[in-house]
């Protein structure tokens, strides 16, 4: 036991040294600031923002790149709640549920208290999430060291199936998009034979499709196209929020305690589970609060529990989402896929060896989470005035600038116009997918996981001499694949039920 703590404190030392380097402090600050901004602004999600800044991170050290991207990710949860409470505008999907009770609170003149309590809750949830990551990651890595290709293949399949089944409306459409993403991942050189695949003689495709071009086209460009008409500059009449108006009463504090604890538990669990994530955690914790409340009729009319619990949950989930990504190399969401992509493009293979081979990356990132969350607590309240003003900038002035970032960003990756044409291609595809009601996130997940899945699948079949059932022979892979099949069956059954509810043609 003493050993465990000795190693942990040693690692924390490494992490603190890395995270507190002036450069990393700066990137952490830039990341969380950009994250808050993205969270406040409707029409740009965390995925789009991360893919826009992705090319810029290529010139950074791997740790700095991750710290910056991670900051955007968990920063959005803080910014998202601000927009939800003040303006009834969910800046990010995981903050949509905060509108339900946050905006009524604002109309009652209790916006300050709502903002203060969500900030406290976010910090609490985030902190517990970070602690869980610090404690459980080494344990998971310990098990993962024993994993063979069969286990990896099984876990990745679970991640992909869970991601398409739990979040999306149509399981079949999500699964089809996962497969499409894996197909994009096959472009390039085959790792086993060294032969090219689907490159059509283009030298620029030998290293595969650029994840930056894919993500920016699918998320950034298509989001801009749909936002031009949909997003209007917010009409703001909220008076400045004074520090005095933020001091919660004893009743508010008492009512918020248990929701924070429950929100943290729900968020931590669903964050770590591949395929779920902060949005689902937030919705579930709202539902749970309504369930356990003594007066559920207060919900939707400004119940503080209904704001604090989901905001706590989404922050806890933001942090624990890193556990499978960093320990197993299996991202559970599109944002985590970008984090993984950032690592891989730097020549670092994520997986159980990451913690031992690059302790500075892992522990530096974890320690930067503390710093980032502290920065967010300190900045969140004073910056409210700035966010309110930024929200009044009309979208027609914003989107050309966003497109400029996309274009220059992707062009500078390789100083190559080829990647710009790829953005055009994926932008058109992304918009076509929106029209066809096909989700984009599974494409990105499949794209990142596909090559690894193929490698592990081929290795498993090589060892087992082509026996598919070998995947079920080892206990972990057997159980995981069994679970995958169960989730799949449940999802398909749900889709079927949904379709039956719709009217048939006469």
């Amino acid at each position: 036991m003493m050993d465990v703590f000795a190693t942990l404190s040693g690692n924390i030392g490494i992490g603190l040294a890395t995270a507190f380097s002036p450069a990393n402090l700066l990137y952490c600050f830039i990341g969380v600031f950009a994250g808050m901004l993205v969270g406040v602004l409707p029409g740009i999600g965390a995925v789009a923002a991360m893919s826009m800044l992705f090319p810029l991170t290529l010139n950074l050290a791997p740790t700095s790149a991750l710290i910056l991207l991670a900051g955007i990710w968990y920063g959005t949860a803080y910014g998202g709640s601000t927009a939800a409470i003040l303006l009834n505008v969910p800046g990010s999907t995981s903050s949509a549920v905060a509108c339900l009770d946050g905006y009524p609170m604002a109309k009652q003149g209790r916006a300050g208290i709502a903002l203060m309590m969500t900030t406290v809750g976010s910090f609490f949830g985030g902190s517990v999430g970070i602690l869980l990551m610090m404690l459980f990651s080494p344990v998971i890595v310990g098990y993962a060291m024993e994993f063979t290709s069969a286990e990896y293949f099984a876990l990745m399949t679970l991640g992909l199936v869970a991601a398409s089944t739990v979040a999306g409306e149509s399981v079949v459409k999500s699964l089809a998009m996962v497969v499409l993403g894996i197909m994009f991942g096959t472009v390039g050189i085959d790792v086993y034979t060294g032969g090219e695949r689907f490159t059509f003689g283009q030298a620029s495709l030998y290293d595969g499709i650029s994840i930056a071009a894919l993500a920016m086209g699918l998320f950034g460009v298509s989001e801009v196209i749909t936002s031009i008409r949909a997003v209007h500059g917010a009409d703001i009449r909220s008076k400045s929020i004074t520090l005095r108006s933020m001091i919660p009463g004893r009743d508010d504090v008492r009512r918020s305690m248990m929701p924070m604890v429950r929100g943290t538990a729900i968020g931590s669990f669903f964050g770590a589970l591949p395929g779920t994530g902060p949005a689902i955690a937030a919705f579930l914790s709202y539902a749970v609060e309504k369930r356990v409340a003594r007066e559920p009729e207060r919900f939707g009319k400004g119940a503080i529990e209904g704001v604090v619990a989901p905001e706590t949950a989404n922050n806890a989930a933001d942090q624990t989402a890193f556990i499978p990504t960093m320990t197993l190399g299996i991202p559970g969401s599109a944002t985590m896929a970008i984090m993984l992509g950032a690592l891989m493009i730097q020549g670092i293979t994520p997986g159980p060896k990451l913690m031992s081979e690059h302790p500075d990356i892992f522990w530096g990132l974890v320690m930067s989470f503390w710093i980032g969350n502290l920065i967010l607590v300190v900045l969140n309240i004073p910056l409210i005035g700035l966010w309110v003003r930024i929200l009044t900038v009309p979208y027609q002035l914003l989107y050309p600038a966003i497109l400029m970032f996309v274009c220059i960003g992707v062009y500078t990756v390789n100083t190559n116009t080829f990647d710009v044409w790829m953005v055009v291609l994926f932008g058109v595809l992304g918009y076509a997918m929106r029209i066809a009601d096909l989700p984009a996130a599974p494409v990105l997940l499949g794209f990142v996981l596909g090559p690894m899945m193929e490698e592990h699948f081929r290795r498993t079949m090589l060892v087992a001499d082509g026996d598919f059932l070998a995947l079920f022979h080892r206990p972990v892979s057997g159980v995981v694949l069994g679970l995958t099949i169960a989730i799949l069956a449940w999802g398909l059954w749900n889709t079927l039920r949904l379709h039956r509810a719709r009217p048939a043609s006469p």
Partner: protein
Amino acid sequence: MLSRDYRDIVTGAVLTLAGLIYAGYAAMKYDTGTISEMGPGMFPLGLGLMLAGFGVVIALPALRRVGEPVEVEWRQAVAVVASIVVFGLLIRPFGLVPAVIALTLVATLGDDKLGLRGALLLAAGVTAMAALIFVVGLGMLIPLARWPL
């Protein structure tokens, strides 16, 4: 309301076609090998067939259900895509400033809230921002402007 869910029918058909083309190309161009020793073509072949299958599953139930008409924002889509194309065409021969000015002007065509004056002002602002952030701030080696003749 449409008599059939044409959106899902077309989506499913396109996915099936794409899957079949991809699988066919993989099977013809690359060695598939055996299950225990897979060649580069085997995995793609499987993927293509899976996508084709999913396409069928998406299209079939849509034949028996009513659908909503889809709305395509042509103007916005064309302006945004064209602005990126224009950037791609201009950045190499002419440099950053002309490329970003052209990108901004084409992009503003997606929305008629700005007049010509507003569009020009915005182009100037976005270009200045691009030059300051990428060339001055991040020190990227992109020529600001050049004349290729």
